């Protein structure tokens, strides 16, 4: 792998090829586990029904909540679902299982493979069944677009898509940071705390006090996993947030990578 490391584009192509192979293998497994895929698809539809009931209940008869109309709330939830289940299908479960791999001594196999330890820990499997729950996000976003397509600026679609990618990168960074601590303390339970903070992203960030808003825009940027991408489609946010989101994602990825590299030094193959 070292000889390919000198050319960053070759490196990206190499990892992309590896990931495509992983997805292909997962797709063939999905054929064998059809019931799982069907169950997750039904779950996706069920989630939409539940979320619609939930949002209508908090919006009440005024059909608005914290300055957001009910359709806009659907949009935030849809974007949150899209980011969440994409993250779970691609890397979150892999990183979640890192703890188990370390306990069983299986992490050595990842280190032996001709790829970076971060890639090996994050993308060794693609969970097509979890990916099916993305349908809940697509339905809710699709509903908003169908109802408001005439109000959405053309560049809004691209900006939202860009911010969704930023949201996934920020989610990934936090997952990687939390997983890195497994090298120090096994079974630390930090993931469960992170999951609870993640869940705040499905609601408008404006409901929190100003101090907490700073927290959700800067330290744990949950705002970029729901509210901010939605605002680009609605068209009520400054385009400076594109730059801010991009810079934030780069900083978080850098921090996550540094923490991982620092923590992995602590790894001893035990099992």
């Amino acid at each position, binding site marked *: 792998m070292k000889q390919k490391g000198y050319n960053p584009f070759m490196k990206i192509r190499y990892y992309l090829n590896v990931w495509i192979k992983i997805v292909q293998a997962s797709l063939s497994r999905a054929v064998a*586990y*059809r*019931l*799982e*895929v*069907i*169950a*997750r698809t*039904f*779950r996706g539809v*069920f*989630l939409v029904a*539940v979320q619609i*009931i*939930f949002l*209508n*209940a*908090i*919006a*009440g*008869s*005024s059909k*608005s*909540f*914290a300055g957001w109309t009910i359709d806009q709330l659907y949009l935030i939830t849809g974007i949150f679902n899209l980011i969440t289940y994409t993250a779970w299908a691609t890397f979150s479960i892999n990183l979640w299982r890192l703890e188990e791999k370390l306990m069983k001594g299986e992490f050595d196999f990842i280190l032996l493979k001709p790829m970076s330890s971060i890639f090996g820990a994050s993308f060794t499997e693609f969970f097509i*069944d979890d990916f099916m729950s993305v349908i809940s996000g697509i339905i809710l976003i699709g509903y908003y677009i169908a109802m408001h397509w005439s109000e959405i600026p053309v560049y809004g679609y691209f900006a939202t898509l860009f911010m969704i990618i930023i949201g996934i990168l920020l989610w990934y960074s936090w997952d990687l940071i939390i997983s890195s601590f497994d090298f120090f*303390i*096994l*079974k*630390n*339970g*930090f993931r*469960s*705390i992170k*999951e*609870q*903070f993640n*869940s*705040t992203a499905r*609601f408008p960030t404006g*409901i*929190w006090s100003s101090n907490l808003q700073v927290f959700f825009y800067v330290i744990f940027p949950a705002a970029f996993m729901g509210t901010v991408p939605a605002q680009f489609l609605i068209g009520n946010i400054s385009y400076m947030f594109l730059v801010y989101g991009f810079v934030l994602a780069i900083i978080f990825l850098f921090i996550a990578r540094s923490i991982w590299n620092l923590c992995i030094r602590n790894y001893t193959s035990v099992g």
Partner: protein
Amino acid sequence: MLIQNPKQFLNVVLKEIQLQFSTELEYRLQIISWVISDMVFPVILTVIWSSAASSAGAKFTTSDIVSYFLMIAIVLKLTEDVSHKYVGNKIIFGEFSNYLSKPFNYLAEVLGISISMKILRTIIALPMIILVFTMFNQYISYEINNTSIILFILALILAFSINFLLGNIFALLSFFVKQIQGLRAFYDNIVTFLSGQVMPIFAIPTGAVFIIILLPFRYTLSFPVEILIGNLSDIDIRNGFIISIIWLLLLIVIYKFMYRQAIKSYEAEGI
């Protein structure tokens, strides 16, 4: 009878509680993290529903919401059950054979694990619970008198029993369906929504309330809390207990029937 030898069953439960205590205490940081995360989510929901309560036309007050979700956090600790995952995994990985060769009912072991987890986590959560209650003190209002406390405790025992049976019935599905992860996630979502964990029953649209009242999930969490916050009339409480007991008896019958069928079809191969 679900339990053939009550004295032996109780002994196994007590031994299992001791054993589980030492296992759980091995990973103290994990328990502390779980306790923190368990309290974060109710606080998030309290903030969201309080915002909803302050809007015009809301059917509930901030006090209703705060009292409900903070008590939900405690009752959830006391009624939660891990059987559907724990027993389900034993069946899928072919480890259920161990139970069949033991001279006691496997439910004793599962019950012991469940009780020890509750005791330990509730004790560890106490400082956090006190802190949160102090923070929201001005909004908290419960109907505390001898009758309501006795009814609350009875509802709590019924809640755990129903939850325990539901979990074990779901776990038995693993005998028939090996691809259970997707169904399990679906089941978790159904329970979370219908038990009132994210949405109080008094905030649910009237049409859906009737269905929720008839299903068993409300009686695993929301019903004891509703008694304590004084939202129910005497007739509602009486009906609630009748429905709970009917479900409890029905679930015992379903469990016994499914267990017999499951054992007949069991092949201890492991997958």
